[in-house]
């Protein structure tokens, strides 16, 4: 995963010597391979373009402004089943919640791995542990969350039924489980930033009498800020796009429900849906057969992912300009 978490860097132009002249002089098998390379590259571009264009057409066709601020209702009659205000709010809640949990944890882990990393065996275990979490499918994380949060002691996180049975499903629990999905991306990007900071930056700080902790706080974290931001944006995209966890742990209600008495927190403790589960529920695979609304919500979701992708690009480009002094 860390390979995808790396922000694109400005690299020196590759030397393209071409001693054998143009490809026309190549043997046939090499020309065929070259053609296949072009075909593969162009096919990927075509697939991406088709997906985006298709969703754009369907989105423009079916997205009505009122869908954005109507609350969803369970109804077979599609003119009465409302819009997707609640799923939008649910997505926002979950993305923010998961990031609040994952960002400090991820940055701390990355800083520890690169700056301390002792004892070494522990660092190596943590490093492979991050890789394991990155490779664990979200459906497994969802089932783990289901088994873990349905324990009696953790009942305050979700609704409890009659007689103290813990429901084990709430947006807060979704946030906790989804933060695990964002974690490897944040760790990977932060480490990348710290590792690419040259030694002399640290040494200059030590020479001024700063402690290691002060160096991290005052020098390294500010330098790595664009990388942290990249990791967070990637993590947000991953969380916003996840369906399995919310499907199993979100409680399965279309509307946001409240639970508990603390305003603000009660929404997190309640159940709800996100754009992804809304799409799933309205597709032919879910119970609702409302493909128009699924398309409209999917368009919104894709737009969100595109914006986050664009943000990653912007952050990476901006950091290359501003942080030239460290190189």
């Amino acid at each position, binding site marked *: 995963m860390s*390979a995808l978490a790396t922000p694109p860097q400005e690299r020196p132009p590759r030397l393209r010597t071409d001693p054998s002249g143009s490809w026309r002089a190549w043997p046939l098998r090499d020309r065929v391979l070259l053609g296949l390379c072009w075909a593969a*590259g162009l096919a*990927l571009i075509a697939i991406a373009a088709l997906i985006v264009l298709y969703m754009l057409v369907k989105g423009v066709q079916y997205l009505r402004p009122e869908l954005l601020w109507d609350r969803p209702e369970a109804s077979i009659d599609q003119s009465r089943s409302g819009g997707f205000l609640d799923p939008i709010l649910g997505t926002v809640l979950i993305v923010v919640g998961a990031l609040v949990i994952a960002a400090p944890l991820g940055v701390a882990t990355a800083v520890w791995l690169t700056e301390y990393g002792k004892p070494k065996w522990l660092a190596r275990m943590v490093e492979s542990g991050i890789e394991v979490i990155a490779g664990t499918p979200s459906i497994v994380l969802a089932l783990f969350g289901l088994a873990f949060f349905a324990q009696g002691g953790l009942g305050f996180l979700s609704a409890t039924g009659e007689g103290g049975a813990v429901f084990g499903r709430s947006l807060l629990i979704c946030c906790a489980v989804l933060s695990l999905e964002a974690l490897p991306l944040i760790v990977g990007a932060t480490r990348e930033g710290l590792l690419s900071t040259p030694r002399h930056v640290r040494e200059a700080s030590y020479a001024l009498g700063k402690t290691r902790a002060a160096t991290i706080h005052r020098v390294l974290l500010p330098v790595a800020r664009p990388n942290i931001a990249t990791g967070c944006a990637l993590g947000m995209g991953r969380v916003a796009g996840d369906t399995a966890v919310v499907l199993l742990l979100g409680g399965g209600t279309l509307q946001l429900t409240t639970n508990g008495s603390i305003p603000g927190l009660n929404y997190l403790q309640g159940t709800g849906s996100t754009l992804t589960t809304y799409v*799933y529920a309205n*597709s032919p695979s879910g119970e609702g057969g409302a493909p128009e609304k699924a398309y409209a919500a999917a368009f919104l979701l894709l737009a969100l992912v595109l914006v986050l992708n664009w943000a990653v690009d912007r952050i990476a480009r901006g950091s290359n300009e501003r942080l030239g002094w460290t190189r």
Partner: protein
Amino acid sequence: MSGWWSDRRVGPALGSAGVLVLAIIAGMTVYVLREAWPSFSANGLAWFGTGGDANVQLENIFRSEPPFEYMLRAWPLLYGTLLSSGGAVIFGLVLSTLTAVFIVEFAPPSVVRILEPVVRLLAGVPSVIYGLIGVLVLVPFLNDHLISTERKESVFYVIQLTGQSLLVATALLTIMIVPIMIAIAVDALRSVPSSWTEGALALGANRMRVMWTIALRAARPALVAGAVLALARALGEAIMLAMVSGGVIFAPNPLDGSTFFFEPIQPLAAAIVQGAEGITVKPYGQTLFAFAAVIMVSSVGLSITGWAVRRRLRRFAA
């Protein structure tokens, strides 16, 4: 910056975040295996075998009263998982190798500037959108145009062909796992020492030969690592596969010829999503946890393998 924030405290404080990560993994293993245990212990190794109709067995598990029924032969589900993810990784390996070579060596800079964001976009598209496109576009297209009525009638007494098929599942899965493979392959090809490739060029090999015989061979461990990580991703893909595979557990038969590709599959992860509503029913939920345990063990094993391969690669490059 003195007092509490001294070096002696900050190190362990940050380290505890790392230890928490390990604790979460340990917790996950324990909780999932504990929930899954009844299903494995009731069936023994036969759990992984064939026998009977898995649809009926799951139905019986769902309806059973105490003492619970756990009898399940999960081979059709395992087979579906292997077919879809194995096929996707094989196609993905070809597609990603060609694309990586293209990006690194042959694409004009303007095309690279498009292709790199495209790869990141394909990695970022949520699986539910792939699933939606699959179930609303590809499946109906297959059903209306590619599967002839004769073909449907030829297997009518075994399975109904609706377009929800191995073909659609594998195709979409390939697109979903290709970005990670390309990212790893491109990284590796770029880190091949330029003295090697330039040496080969100087000896008169053309650029394609150089990529094929020098760069790709040097980057082979990375291609393996990419394939392994992609396989872990493919095994666990649940939502998209649940949307494009029908609700029926079926093991496509390669002896059916080309009809094989149009037969439905039901991978493990998809079966969990489709059974999610009944997960609170005790024996059924435990069976679903057993599916998750199989996925978990294999994907953890694959991730560690991929990590180890890539780690060795880094040492080799340094």
